[in-house]
Each structure stands twice: as structure tokens, then as C-alpha cells.
């Protein structure tokens, strides 16, 4: 558009509006990181601190006193990594089958996959808890990464990608050369799925990392809490250690923020593609 580059008054106003929105959205993150470096008295001073302080290590020490924080971090990492690894393999396999193979019932089965995305999650909260109880998985990380190990959104994304980006000739050629089905998948299809696997991996990791209701329902002992649950358990009505809590929040947020900065475009595209085309 021709008016896009001139600094007209209306463009200045637009930029100001959009910029104000960015500030509004970024401010809470800024305060989380700033508060992580102050002690409780500083945080609640008037005016509140706007710049970094010197209490970060003290806050972390306090955090370690109140929570088995490293174990919680490890649990979060473990659950998110397992969920992601399983999803990458299982969704790619299923997506490959739906994109490339012809088989009886394919349409109905795929409709089932897509339809399963429509079920609201709260409906499953209570019975899932009971299934976990029956399986003896309460308080075990398995209860968090097994149920979602082959997500419907992932299957959908992988099917779209494999169907459009991987030449059929290549797959046919591999078969001609005597590759078995698994071999074709693993040595020919998977290496070409890089971008889709990257997007799917990020989405899965972020969702698993941030999951709150899942661990809330099945995890019992503080050592097995994931980060969100652990941080919430530190909140108490009157004497929450806000500095320590903000340090914990900052540590929990940082890996995702960094990953997001490097992959925002792809991630946004992947998430909305799944939602829009679904």
C-alpha cells in the first residue's frame, strides 16, 4: 500500500496505538523479571522498582528453601520432553498414513481424529483422574505424558505437511528400491519433515510445559510437582515470598520466551494453521 511508508498523522497515531498495546502486553513480563531481582520489601515499596535489583541469588536461595525447585524443574523438563518426543514420532507416523496410504475407513478415521479435538477438556477431568487411579498412575509422570502422546492436532499438522511437501515419487521410488513401510517412513519421510516437526515439537513442548490442570489433578507429592503447580503451592494468604516466587516464575518462563523469540513466525503460523484449517 502506498500510504504505508509515509509518516502521516494517522500513521503516527496507529503506531502509537499498536505500540501502547505492545507495552501493555510486555509490562507484566518486564515486572516479573525485575521483581525476580528484588526482595519482598523492595517489590512492595512505593513507587515499585522499575529496574533490576541485586537480590536474584538470594531469591533463588529462598526458593530452594521453600520448594524442591530443581526437582520440579526436572519434572517439568522430563514430562515436556517425553510428551514432545512421543508426539513427534507418533503424530508423524499417523500423519504419514493419512497423507500417503489408501486404506478402508480412512475418511471416517480421520474425521474421528479431527472430531476428537472438539471435545472440551474439562469433560474428561474427573473420569481421567479415575482412570489414572485405576491404573495406579496417580502421582506418576506417566499420567501426564502418556494420554497426550499422540495428539490430534499433531496428526493433523503432519498430514497436511506430508501431503503437500513430500513428493509422492520419492516415496514410490523408495518402495521400488525395496524399502519396507517403516524404513520408508524413517529414512525418507522423517528427514524431510524438519519444518513441520519443529513447529509441532515447539507447540507440544510449550503446552506440556505450561499444563496446569493435568498435574493439579494427578500429582500428589511436592517432589513430583511440575513448575506451575510448585509455584502455585508457594502462594499463601499473608506471607508469600514474592521475590522468590517471581524468580521461580522467571526461570519457568525464560526457556519458552527464548524459544519463542527464535521461532515466533513459524510457531504462530503452525498454531493458527491448525486452528484455522481444523
Amino acid at each position, binding site marked *: 500500500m502506498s500510504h504505508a511508508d509515509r509518516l502521516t498523522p494517522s500513521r503516527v497515531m496507529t503506531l502509537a496505538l499498536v505500540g501502547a498495546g505492545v507495552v501493555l502486553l510486555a509490562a507484566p513480563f518486564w515486572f516479573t523479571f525485575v521483581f525476580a531481582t528484588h526482595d519482598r520489601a523492595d517489590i*512492595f515499596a512505593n513507587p515499585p522498582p522499575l529496574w533490576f535489583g541485586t537480590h536474584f541469588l538470594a531469591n533463588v536461595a529462598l526458593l530452594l528453601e521453600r520448594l524442591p525447585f530443581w526437582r520440579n524443574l526436572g519434572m517439568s523438563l522430563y514430562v515436556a520432553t517425553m510428551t514432545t518426543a512421543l508426539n513427534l514420532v507418533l503424530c508423524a507416523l499417523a500423519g504419514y498414513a493419512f497423507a500417503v496410504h489408501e486404506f478402508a475407513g480412512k475418511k471416517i478415521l480421520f474425521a474421528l481424529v479431527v472430531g476428537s479435538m472438539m471435545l472440551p477438556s474439562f469433560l474428561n477431568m474427573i473420569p481421567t483422574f479415575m482412570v489414572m487411579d485405576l491404573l495406579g498412575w496417580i502421582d506418576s509422570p506417566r499420567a501426564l505424558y502418556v494420554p497426550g502422546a499422540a495428539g490430534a492436532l499433531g496428526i493433523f499438522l503432519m498430514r497436511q505437511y506430508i501431503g503437500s511437501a513430500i513428493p509422492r515419487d520419492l516415496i514410490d521410488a523408495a518402495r521400488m528400491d525395496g524399502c519396507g513401510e517403516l524404513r520408508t517412513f524413517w529414512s525418507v519421510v522423517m528427514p524431510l519433515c524438519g519444518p513441520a516437526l519443529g513447529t509441532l515439537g515447539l507447540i507440544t513442548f510449550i503446552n506440556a510445559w505450561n499444563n496446569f490442570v493435568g498435574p493439579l489433578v494427578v500429582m500428589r507429592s511436592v517432589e513430583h510437582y511440575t513448575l*506451575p503447580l510448585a509455584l502455585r503451592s508457594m502462594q499463601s494468604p499473608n506471607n508469600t515470598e514474592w521475590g522468590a516466587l517471581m524468580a521461580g516464575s522467571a526461570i519457568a518462563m525464560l526457556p519458552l520466551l527464548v524459544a519463542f523469540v527464535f521461532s515466533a513466525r513459524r510457531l504462530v503460523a503452525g498454531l493458527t494453521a491448525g486452528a484455522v484449517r481444523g
Partner: protein
Amino acid sequence: MNNMLTSDAATAPPALVPADASRARWRRRARKLAPYAFIAPFFVLFGVFGLFPLLFSIWLSLHQWDAAAGLAAMHWVGLENYKYAVTDPWFAKSLLNTLWFAVASGVPQHLVALPLAFLIHTTLKRSRNFVVGAYFVPYVTSSVAIALIFTTLFSKDFGVINAMLPGPPIDWLGDAFWARITIAFVVFWRYLGWNVVLYLSALQVISGDLYEAATLDGASRWQQFRYIALPLLKPMMFFAITLTLIGNLQLFEEPFILIPPDSGVATSVMTTAMFMYRMAFSDGDFGTASAVSWLLFFIIAALTWGNSRLFGKEGASDVAR
């Protein structure tokens, strides 16, 4: 696939040794069964952790069951749990709260996201990816971390918000009215970027020629928004509003974390999903809790259906395609 098989046969040497023939047969069978093996993990997991729990919760909702007494202690009560839930004043109150949040956080989300997406689309070029990314960050951040920082920012005596506002401090989280406003704001804040991104993706599909022609005809930015973008965005509006509706009616995490259960305003911000959670995990009444979850499901289904009627058939079918 069929082409493949015939071409396979055509290129095969005319005289097959028996060993090769059986290998080929085996391979053909494997190729037939392989896709089922490949999609099996999803269906097994969905069966065990999706479908079975779902059916089980229907069964459960028709029983009275004391969680502590084990599965044998279930006994059939028919629709009693539903009757009990419907007549429970707390259920009605939780529903009203849920609807209030759905409107108070949902309507502003779209009223802001639509024009904002249009402005970003028509004004920004180089900085667009940065801005879109910034708007999207809350969506990929832990709800707990978000609730915790907002708890400090909205703190009555020491919070940043009250420090910036003139006048007497507002009890954002301790007063029933303000607590609801605060929660609605946090939900708005968290999902605004998501909606902007959705609308931007729809705007990118609209041909630039349309705006250009309108500019030549002397249409103002507002007119371009009102008469070109808005009508073409209708299918996406339907889709985005449906997502907001479904999401907001299940609202749980934000009020659950922002307002401690022993707070004086806890009941004023209790959503139906929270009511269900409390019924199951605090009171141990899994039967009624399941009935509540199904009632909520039907309400969501009804409102989603109403929404699709409101948008008319064309809006809905455009998205379904």
C-alpha cells in the same frame, strides 16, 4: 496407490522366482496393514484416555458414589444428580459468573482485536513480525506465572496498578466487583494476541486490489475497514468467536489461581468449571460433579449452535470448508 501396483506389475520381470513372489505378496500385505499400525497409537490412547473416560462420566453422572469407598460403593440414582445440580443455587451462581466472564472478557477481545489487526495489516511492514510476536507471547506463557505476576501488580496496598492510579487504592482482588473486572482483564490480556493473529491471517487472504480500488474511489480507512475488510472477515469472526465462547465457558485457571479458595470473594468468581472441580476434589462427590460437567457441555453446545445461527449459514459453512 492403484497406479503404483499396476506399474509395479508392468516393470516386474516376466518370470518370477517363487521366493520373490512370496516376498512380493508379503510386502503387499504389509503395505495394506501398515497404515492401521501407524494410526493405532492415537486410537488406543484416545480410546483409553478419551472415549472411555467420556462414556464412564455419563455412567458416573447417573450414580451416587463416595470416592473413598471404592468402585463397589456406586449406586444408581438415575437423574438425581442432574436434579440436584440444577436446583443447587451455587450451580446457578457459577453459571451466571461464567457467562459474565465470557461476555466481559470475550466482547472486548474481539472489539479490540478486529480493528487492531486491520491497523497492523495496513500500516506495519518491517515491524509486523515483531509486533505479532509480542502480542502472541501471553498465549504461550504459563497461566500460573501470569496469574502470579498479576496478583502482585493488582495488590491493594502495594501494587503497581494502584501506585499509578490517582485516588484511594482499589481492592482489585478482595472486592467482589473489582475481582471480576480484574479476572476479565487478565483473560482479555492473555487472548487478545491470539485473536489478532487469527484476524491477521484472514486479512492476508484479502486481495490488496480491493483496497487500492477503494482508495482510488476516495474511500477513507474507516470505510475500507467497514465495507471491505469487515464483510470478508465474517467467516473468521464466526470461527474466532466460537473459539472464545468455548474457551471462556470452560474458564478455570485464571480465577482459580488469582483468587485463593479461602478468599472472601471466592464464590463471586467461581466459574462452573471451578464448581465442578470443587465438587469432585474437595467434596468427593464425583457423581454430581460429572452431572455438572455434562450440563456445562450442553450449555456450551447450545450457545455455540446459537452463535452459528446468529452468523447465518454462509459464515458457518465457509469455515467448515
